[in-house]
């Protein structure tokens, strides 16, 4: 698939991804809107700029690995996987139904393109470290990308993993902190402060970058910079807004795993530039001429790792 580093194009795709998130949350059902939207720009940049993969061969060993340690934001990843052609887009509409390909949290043995089972917070970053170590053992140049939540940093396992990554000098590991300032039940600074983050990861021996997690240019820049950082893992502290893109959900803990009524659902889609009454477009981005690779080149080209 063709890659883009154009911020406007990435922003446009991210809006599309967010519209899918809203569709998957649906009407009068619970769904992890907030954290999926806060991570959407990062996930989009990973799939449409950075990650090396072959949607037709999700287990291609040369692929880059991306896993959400904050597994509850799976909707963002599902949307990208669908648009990249890992599975038919209509699977998005069946999310969380009995027997669905797309479960409430990521499941590696169910869903093409998912790398690990996450959902119990704190575990994914350790798995990412193990993957990075495994890839290095095999002398692969693939990199591992991971997103942790700021609330998730309460889990001591995040710090255990941070020790492991730094001790084993896993410089093929890049982690984003989705720093939206909220956990399930309110503001971190009010309810259970785990900051300041850059100081912590520096003390744990990581390279630390800090960016606006909704600025595609900054995300791409961080990915590029991190590719050159050696000897240690890199943490990108990404300042984000929970619920980003859906005005009434922004900064609002109620929409962490909240419910949209019909009016909210429609408003959310409209704000994201989607027509709530239009039929669902089943064509993935990867099938569009501007995303197909010219001359039928292997889908695995492009992407840093």
């Amino acid at each position, binding site marked *: 698939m063709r890659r883009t580093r154009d911020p406007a194009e990435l922003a446009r795709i991210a809006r599309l991804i967010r519209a899918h998130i809203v569709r998957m949350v649906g009407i009068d059902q619970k769904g992890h809107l907030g954290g999926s939207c806060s991570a959407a720009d990062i996930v989009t940049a990973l799939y449409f700029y950075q990650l090396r993969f072959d949607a037709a061969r999700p287990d291609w060993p040369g692929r880059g690995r991306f896993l959400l340690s904050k597994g509850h934001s799976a909707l963002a990843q599902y949307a990208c996987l669908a648009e990249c052609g890992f599975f038919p887009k209509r699977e998005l509409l069946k999310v969380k139904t009995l027997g*669905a390909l797309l*479960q409430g949290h990521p499941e590696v043995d169910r869903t093409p393109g998912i790398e690990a089972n996450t*959902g119990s917070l*704190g575990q994914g970053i350790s798995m990412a470290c193990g993957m990075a170590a495994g890839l290095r053992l095999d002398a692969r140049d693939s990199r591992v990308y991971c997103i942790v939540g700021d609330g998730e940093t309460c*889990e001591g396992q995040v710090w255990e993993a941070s020790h492991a990554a730094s001790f084993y000098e896993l410089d093929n590991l890049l982690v984003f902190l989705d720093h939206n300032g909220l956990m399930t*039940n309110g503001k971190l600074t009010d309810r259970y402060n785990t900051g300041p983050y850059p100081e912590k990861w520096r003390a744990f021996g990581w390279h630390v970058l800090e960016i606006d997690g909704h600025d595609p240019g900054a995300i791409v820049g961080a990915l590029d910079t991190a590719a050159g950082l050696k000897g240690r893992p890199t943490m990108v502290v990404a300042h984000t807004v929970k619920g980003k893109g859906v005005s009434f959900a922004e900064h609002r803990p109620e929409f962490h795993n909240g419910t949209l009524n019909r009016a909210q659902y429609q408003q959310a889609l409209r704000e994201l530039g989607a027509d709530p009454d239009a039929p669902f477009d089943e064509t993935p981005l990867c099938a569009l001429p501007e995303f197909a690779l010219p001359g039928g080149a292997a889908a695995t080209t492009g992407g840093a790792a």
Partner: protein
Amino acid sequence: MSPTLATARIQNPREVYGRTLVELGRADPRVVVLEGDLGKSTMTCYFEETFPERFFEMGIGEANMTSFAAGLALTGKIPFTNSFAVFAAGRAYDQIRMGVCVPKLNVKIVGSSAGLSDFGDGSSHQTVDDVAIMRVLPHMTVLVPADAIEVRKMVYAAVAHPGPVYIRITRNDLPDVTREHEPFVIGRPGLIRDGSDVVIFAMGQMVSEAVRAADALAAEGSGARVVNVSTLKPVDEAALIALARGFRGIVTAEEHSLIGGLASVVTWAFRNEHIPVRCVGIEDRWGQSAHSYAELQQEYGLTAGHVAAQARAVLND
């Protein structure tokens, strides 16, 4: 003796749990509450509003929450730790075991959204195993309420009982199947509905399914006694055996793995009793996402129909 579920009041167990914590907070200043960032699901938010100084947000750190609670207990408090059952019990297993259960500390662990009741979130948020892992702990008391009436009584009983207690609470609304005026006593099985052919030992949510099954069986001329086994530890084996004496068979019914839960309790208690037994429960599988709880009940074989079918089968054994 036979509650009609059709007209029974429906209540939400976690709502009642949250309200009861406030009552107890008022009655006993030693009661303190710890929460793992899920206070609006576990309903400890009521306690937080009422007694902010005795409420501890512990973030998403179940291990520390549990050991911190042990420390509070060691200064004479009666701490309740709260999270989804999957994390309250499983993520903090070693902390419950070593810090709380070995020294028999007065810590109450409340596992919310238990079983398959968090139907949308899938395997990572569903507990097929919590009763099993809590039951193997010496000194632990394991309680699984059949309805909201019992939730309230159990929370009182937990405070009155010195030592660790695990309470399993579903996210689902439940019809009242127990009687308000009957006392709850730890360890005592409760007779819910009588009959004389088959005895159904049921746990939690499955008690109301068992009552429905008994209704269906009655229509066919078979009498089913429904017993609410809401204390999974300690087990009064003699009481269970007495309740089944003269019956032609036993059915167990639980929303939990057949390994380590009620089926284990009953087959162990009856190991030398030589009475046919059939078990309804989750067959050594993980949970998964669904659009509704009812879909999962069907998928995992946890409906009144499944209970009735096993009752019929055991009567033919």
